[in-house]
């Protein structure tokens, strides 16, 4: 068996040798594009003046390109159009206004500095609460109350259940703006081929086919005139799925000037590329005497910035929050209002976990607060409310497959030795030290296909994945996938699946991705989906190829198909040493088709598509922290993850995803925050102001895996790419609140910076 092995990654040797091929490596020596960006959050463009020798592109040059208009077909949605380059007005600081093209990146930067854009500034609205204020300016004149989505849902009988409850616990949770901050910023290189009248766009993207469709639609060209390649991509975390306006200009310029051009984003620009989080959840849980949650009322507000991202739209955060807020808890009465609020801030796009880090933070803070109020242990209140029977249909109609919600909680209690910690904590408090423990139990919806995306009512229904699989005459296998991994090691783990199915070595399996000329149309890699969906398609394809090989072998070996066994590169007749090498069967399939069984097609190529409804992973995170009362600084001393993502195809890669996810969750909880001033200027534009954690801030992450057997996925694998980021902020804020419980302090805002904690401590001490 290859599945389940910690196989070294086939991706690594070239990356380790410095032989990776990232977009900036491709872009050496071509024409350089530099964007002139708005220095104001809101204003009217009066004029644009450029030096005479400069090649400058403005909105006037792009008159034939329609604006980007991401759509949701819902009555509670107001679409907003985004021009590729700002036209007449600017709507957020950093918005591209013009593009300068020059022979080198240095010259392009120099010329861009010399482009003078005269803007009459207008009062912006940047802050979430301000945008909802009646007196706030309107970001888009056709959007009343700056509310682009105003969705709501109330279950029948909600009022009676809610008002009849014994306890009402309210929580007001705020997450500040974040940036996904891939170490490689965005960028693209467009090569024009005059012979074919075709552009090859090498772009740092998570979804090359989606990008090809978007660009072809906007430029009004057939998709055959465009090839999109995702080379090595230096991290993405969601930010590189949404369409960059800059990519549109890059392809347009390559066609217009019939030459190769590139745009390589710098770090400062990346800070205003796409943002995320920036949400507020006001939630009241109604509990009965026994601590059982009977009803929940929620008001969700998401500051989605100036425009809507393509293709998933600005609805992705509030609508996910509405559907998934019930989390892993069983209750039947729910009333929610969820809004997407426009502002003159940078547009929002999905970032690892999307709304779920804030959903989980809210729910888990609610559970701890309710437990404290009712005098129940935080672990116990969760045990009383977690879903236990599967399949479980949530109050919003989501179906949870087999999971281990209670088991993962119990296991984590064991791993941290909770009783002992409580004793240590009492002793520490007596010595004036503030240590705390926080739990976070959550579900992670992963690997969902067409049916789940159709419910979103986007213009484009994402979901399925297709693979083309072929064994060549030498017996080696090539699988071409529509997924587009960028660090997840999918080439390695898919080859493990194929190897098991065909009884061959993973070395004999080559996975091809990230090239629209070589791979079947697919949706790319995001939403913890590739192992489930692309993996499922790969397994189906490999099973079909195995069937074909078995048919041929059956004839060659004169044995029944059911008696055949695929092992170490051979097809054997079970219980005998009679067999045939698979590569002989491959050669026969191509070169001796006269010997093939009747009806068998020559060659060995199959196509397979997998389109699952989706599956839920689950986990329990526990954080142990110490808070310095003097400075307000929080140190995470221990972090435990009990995770259930079903079958782990490559546990080494799975653990790596958890490590990286938790590090980003710790970042959300404690460090990373994009700060705007009241004029809408982004103040955090370098890695000295915006603080991704270093090794000094990330503790050892202890991982334990449980394996639920789920029939919702044909490989048994559930997704786990986002779980770390989803669970960690809640665990850490619960731990800080627990540490500071002698002072009666609640921490409900991320990031919990020393400044915020210190302020809460001072308030509490003043009140004492």
């Amino acid at each position, binding site marked *: 068996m290859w599945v389940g092995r910690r196989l070294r990654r086939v991706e690594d040797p070239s990356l*380790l040798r410095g032989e990776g091929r990232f977009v900036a490596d491709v872009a050496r020596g071509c024409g350089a594009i530099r964007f002139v960006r708005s220095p104001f959050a809101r204003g009217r463009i009066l004029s644009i003046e450029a030096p005479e020798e400069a090649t400058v592109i403005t909105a006037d040059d792009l008159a034939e390109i329609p604006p980007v208009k991401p759509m949701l077909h819902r009555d509670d949605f107001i679409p907003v159009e985004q021009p590729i380059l700002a036209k007449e007005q600017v709507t957020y600081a950093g918005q591209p206004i013009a593009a300068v093209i020059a022979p080198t990146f240095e010259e392009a930067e120099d010329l861009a500095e010399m482009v003078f854009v005269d803007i009459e500034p207008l009062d912006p609205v940047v802050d979430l609460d301000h945008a909802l204020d009646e007196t706030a300016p309107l970001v888009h004149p056709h959007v009343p109350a700056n509310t682009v989505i105003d969705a709501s849902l109330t279950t029948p009988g909600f009022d009676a259940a809610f008002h009849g409850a014994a306890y009402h616990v309210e929580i007001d949770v705020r997450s500040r703006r974040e940036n996904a901050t891939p*170490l490689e910023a965005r960028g693209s290189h467009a090569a024009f081929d005059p012979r074919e009248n075709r552009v090859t766009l090498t772009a740092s993207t998570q979804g090359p086919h989606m990008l090809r469709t978007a660009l072809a639609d906007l430029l009004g060209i057939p998709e055959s005139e465009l090839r999109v390649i995702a080379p090595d991509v*230096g991290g993405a975390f969601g930010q590189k799925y949404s369409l960059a306006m800059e990519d549109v200009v890059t392809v347009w310029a390559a066609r217009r000037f019939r030459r190769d051009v590139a745009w390589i984003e710098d770090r400062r620009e990346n800070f205003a590329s796409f943002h995320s989080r920036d949400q507020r959840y006001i939630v009241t849980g109604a509990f009965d005497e026994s601590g059982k949650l009977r009803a929940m009322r929620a008001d969700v507000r998401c500051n989605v910035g100036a425009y809507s991202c393509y293709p998933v739209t600005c609805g992705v955060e509030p609508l996910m929050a509405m559907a998934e807020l019930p989390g892993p808890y069983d209750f039947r009465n729910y009333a929610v209002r969820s809004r997407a609020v426009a502002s003159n801030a940078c547009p929002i796009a999905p970032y690892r976990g999307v709304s779920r880090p804030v959903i989980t933070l809210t729910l888990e803070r609610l559970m701890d607060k309710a437990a404290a109020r009712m005098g129940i242990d935080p672990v116990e209140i969760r045990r009383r409310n977690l879903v236990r029977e599967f399949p479980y249909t949530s109050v919003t109609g989501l179906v949870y497959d087999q999971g281990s919600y209670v088991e993962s909680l119990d296991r984590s209690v064991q791993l941290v030795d909770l009783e002992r910690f409580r004793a240590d904590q009492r002793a520490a408090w007596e010595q004036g030290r503030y240590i705390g423990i926080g739990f976070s139990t959550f579900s992670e919806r992963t690997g969902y296909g067409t049916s789940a995306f159709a419910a979103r009512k986007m213009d484009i229904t994402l979901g399925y994945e297709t693979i083309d699989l072929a064994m060549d005459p030498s017996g080696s296998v090539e699988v071409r996938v529509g997924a587009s991994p960028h660090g997840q090691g999918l080439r390695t783990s898919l080859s493990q699946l194929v190897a098991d199915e065909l009884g061959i070595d993973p070395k004999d399996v080559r996975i091809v991705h990230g090239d629209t000329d070589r791979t079947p149309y697919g949706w790319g890699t995001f939403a913890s989906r590739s192992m489930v969906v692309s993996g499922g398609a790969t397994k189906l394809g490999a099973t079909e190829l195995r069937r074909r090989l078995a048919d041929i072998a059956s004839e060659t070996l004169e044995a029944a198909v059911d008696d055949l066994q695929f092992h170490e590169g051979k097809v054997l007749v079970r219980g005998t040493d009679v067999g045939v090498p698979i590569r002989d069967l491959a050669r026969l399939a191509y070169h001796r088709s006269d010997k093939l069984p009747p009806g068998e097609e020559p060659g060995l190529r199959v196509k397979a598509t997998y389109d699952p409804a989706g599956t839920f992973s689950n986990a329990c995170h526990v954080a142990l922290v110490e808070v310095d009362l003097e400075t307000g600084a929080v140190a995470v001393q221990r972090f435990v993850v009990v995770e259930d993502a079903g079958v782990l195809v490559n546990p080494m890669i799975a653990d790596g995803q958890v*490590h990286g996810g938790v590090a980003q969750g710790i970042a959300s909880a404690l460090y990373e925050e994009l700060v705007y001033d009241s004029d809408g200027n982004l103040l955090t534009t370098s890695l000295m102001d915006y603080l991704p954690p270093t090794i000094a801030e990330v503790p050892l992450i202890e991982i334990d895996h449980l394996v639920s057997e789920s029939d919702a996925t044909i490989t048994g694998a559930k997704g786990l790419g986002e779980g770390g980021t989803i669970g960690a902020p809640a665990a850490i804020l619960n731990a800080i609140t627990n540490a500071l419980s002698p002072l009666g302090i609640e921490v409900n805002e991320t990031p919990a910076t020393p400044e915020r904690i210190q302020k809460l401590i001072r308030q509490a001490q003043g009140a004492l």
Partner: protein
Amino acid sequence: MKTPVKLRVNGQAHEIFVEPRKTLADALRDDCGLTGTHLGCEHGVCGACTVLLDGDPVRACLMFAIQCQDMEIRTVEGLADGEELHPMQRAFWEKHGLQCGFCTPGFLMLAVGALERKPDMDEEELKEMLSSNLCRCTGYQNILAAVRAAQAEMQ
């Protein structure tokens, strides 16, 4: 105004002709064709562009190429001996110390340079050293494990 500069990179001489404002990182990438040195921030924080200059790990984005005249520069391309990976590269592979691989050349050069200077660093010193670079994918767990494994082999 372009100036001739002589760089010695991985034991090889490169005579290049660059503007004085050109950084070492850009010169390595554009003029020497060595694109393994990556640019993550261009303001000296992320460390993806770390190279060794006369044995010291430096940010190649904070040096000008003309400052490096006649100095000995080592980049990620010079780590392996032909087919044979450097123990640090092998350890990163075995311990899964990389995911997207963008920060990896910087971490490799940082760790190799630091351990060549001080082979017996303890865990705290290793962490202190590694805290100079940023990785967004791995959460650093396996980077530390890899550096420890390579340290044992390099001694």
